[in-house]
């Protein structure tokens, strides 16, 4: 078991590093240009702030030359003279990122006006968690219940409706249903607001109510599209388990069907279900990009989308890193849970 955890952790760390490397190499050259422009801007503003420097030069050419040398000096000082792919710089960048030091955003700011990428990310993250984690939990509860119910009565009306709903809903893109829901319930029948961003400030007393009200439409949409495939998946796991010999044995002993389904079979189908739950909890964070963009929900997904549209590289790198970390952690947890629930894995090595 220890060895199992160790290999897993090593792989996870490797993946994290590879992800970072790929991200950096994809955006590296752009990043360099932006950083250099930042230095030029910084030097120029420092010099204009101090008029004495400008007065000490007799000609414009001389003054420009001074600025140029200053810029080159500064670039060398912070190590920008080497290309972004030099091992030193890549190592430095990765080290910084691992310590969650993402630097300053180029364009985007947090609601409070901070341009520190870490501030921005940690401001958006709770909102995404609020919406998508809530949705995932609701989905899984409905899904497990419905799935168990329909596995209990294979071929019944409930089973058929669940299965066909699952199949149909899985081929609709969530964001398109979102557009339709906005069209129907925000404009045609004005029940919910169209933009999911709450319109009052966070310090206001009615903020939580407003937030929940704005959250309703996206939440309903995500749950509506999500629970079908969950129910179908749970049903399939359960149907498999129900054919096992021990269930047959329990039936012959005379244990009630309901008890068998909800206690014995569900417990045995638990490992895959828990695994999928862990994965979809983290997947809900990353897969939210398009849904958040449609509903204008001010979370990680929309931040990511905004960062991409204006090419705000520090934010892109930071968000990718954070999403990857969450994803990896949940895969890890899923693996551990699987091992915990399924004794065959635990004792394998």
């Amino acid at each position: 078991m220890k060895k199992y955890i160790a290999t897993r952790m090593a792989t996870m760390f490797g993946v994290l590093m590879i992800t970072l490397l790929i991200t950096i190499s994809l955006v590296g050259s752009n990043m360099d240009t932006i950083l250099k422009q930042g230095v030029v801007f910084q030097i120029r503003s420092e010099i204009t702030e101090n008029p004495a420097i400008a007065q000490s030069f007799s000609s414009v050419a001389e003054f420009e030359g001074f600025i140029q040398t200053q810029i080159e000096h500064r670039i060398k000082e912070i190590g920008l003279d080497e290309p972004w792919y030099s091992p030193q710089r890549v190592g430095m960048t990765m080290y910084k990122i691992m310590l969650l030091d993402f630097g300053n955003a180029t364009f985007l700011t947090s609601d409070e006006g901070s341009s520190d990428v870490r501030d921005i990310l940690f401001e958006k993250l709770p909102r995404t968690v609020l919406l998508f984690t809530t949705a995932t939990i609701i989905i899984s509860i409905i899904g497990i219940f419905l799935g168990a119910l329909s596995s209990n009565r294979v071929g019944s009306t409930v089973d058929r409706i669940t299965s066909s709903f699952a199949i149909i809903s899985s081929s609709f893109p969530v964001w398109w249903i979102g557009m339709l829901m906005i069209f129907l319930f925000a404009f045609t029948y004005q029940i919910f607001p169209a933009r999911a961003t709450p319109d009052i400030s966070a310090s206001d007393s009615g903020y939580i109510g407003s937030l929940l009200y704005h959250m309703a439409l996206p939440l309903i949409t995500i749950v509506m599209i999500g629970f079908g495939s969950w129910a179908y998946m749970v049903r399939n796991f359960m149907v498999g388990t129900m054919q096992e010999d021990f269930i047959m044995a329990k039936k012959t002993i005379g244990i009630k069907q309901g008890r068998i389904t909800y206690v014995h079979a569900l417990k045995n189908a638990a490992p895959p279900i828990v695994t999928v739950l862990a994965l979809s909890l983290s997947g809900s964070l990353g897969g939210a990009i398009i849904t958040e963009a449609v509903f204008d929900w001010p979370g990680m997904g929309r931040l990511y989308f905004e960062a991409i549209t204006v090419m705000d590289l520090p934010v892109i790198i930071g968000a990718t890193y954070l999403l990857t970390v969450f994803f990896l952690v949940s895969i890890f947890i899923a693996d551990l849970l699987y091992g915990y629930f399924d004794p065959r894995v635990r004792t394998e090595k």
Partner: protein
Amino acid sequence: MSGATPHEIKEEFVKSKMGIAGILILAILLFISIVAIIFIPVETFQEWNNPGNWISNPKSAMPTWANFFMIENIPEHKILEHPNIERTSNEEISLVSHQFGVNYIYDDFPNDFIYEFSARYSGAPLLQMSVIRPDGMKLDIFSTSLPQSDSSSTHSERIFSTDSQIIKNLSFDSKKFEFATFRLSAENIIFSKTNTNEPLKGNYVFSIDLYGMNSTNQIPESKLIIGGKAFGIMGTDELRRDLATGLLWGTPLALFIGLAVSIASVVMGLLYGVYAGYKGKKTDEAMMRFNDVIYALPALPFLIILSVTISNSIFVMVGFLMIFGWVGIAKVSRSMSLQIKTRGYVDAANMMGQKDSKIILKHIVPQLLPYAFASVAISVPAAITTEAGLSFLGLGDPSFPTWGQILHDANTFGAAARGLWWWIMPPGVMIAITGLAFVFIGNALDAIINPKLKR
């Protein structure tokens, strides 16, 4: 894994209602693709983003069939291209007359009207436009003399209903109407009843007369557009594009993306997994670790970064989608090949000294084919929705009108807020139907391969 032979699978599949439904939908989609490729010239969809190409269409017009469900008849957009041509000439003056008949049966005024022509003439002929209304009233709309030219030359022009001369001409006729025509637009006067300002239904005849000294004068191109609020089978969008064209062309594109991505990733995953499983030991370990790495990459963020930094060409995108598609299949086919390689005939083949590649391709892969087909079908919808999602974010290939692209435009122009349902519904429904066809086929196959699920 079951030992079902292809023949058995086929027989079972024919019995499955779901599978048949899937095949039927797929056949319809293929038919649509063929129709699109044959009947809509490739140039049209390459001109998708060129506003000049769509100038004669109305803005955000709803589909014409929507009129069946409306209490009031919405005016259809009419592009009249085949006038009645009359030619009379006496000794001095020759007259070419183009007549457009319009049966106007709608409960609302048209948006505007445009006369688009190109005339071949010499001299300086006079162009006159007038209309005879259902009540017999004749209104002079426009008259102008075309630019002087001594030799034979061609002149093209568009006369818009907002032209100041038209408004002035109509104001001369204002006494014929019992209401104030002042400040009303030209089409609201021409198509109006005389007692109240409501549309007058019936046959209108617009005639365009070209008077000139030369008997060879003619109008080779002559087109009258009565701008309506309904157009075509699927309506138009804010940029006047005919949505039917976009939706039709979206079909082969979506099928291409879906099938290319899923077939390629299944083939890749299958071979990778089988090889790893068959080889075992260190090779297996190394290959599976690599598999884990790809599996743990967050797909959507990476696809976004890739399409922004490298290229958003549709073909490159297919490649990117493949990178993330093969992983799961590799895992499953590895575990399947682990089972198969313990069977006697694989051992036998090994003893006979057959090459690894031959054993894999001849003895192991064929066993996995049913599973491979099911996976192809099941992974198509994901590929299509992912591409649509990327296009929806505005990261798609702008030169191809995919369904996601249409939805992206709809979102940009606030179609939901403005109630332009014909812009939002059809692309999504098409995405869903296409996905559904493959899910049906995949599930039907899956149920045959894994008999446990059926019971």
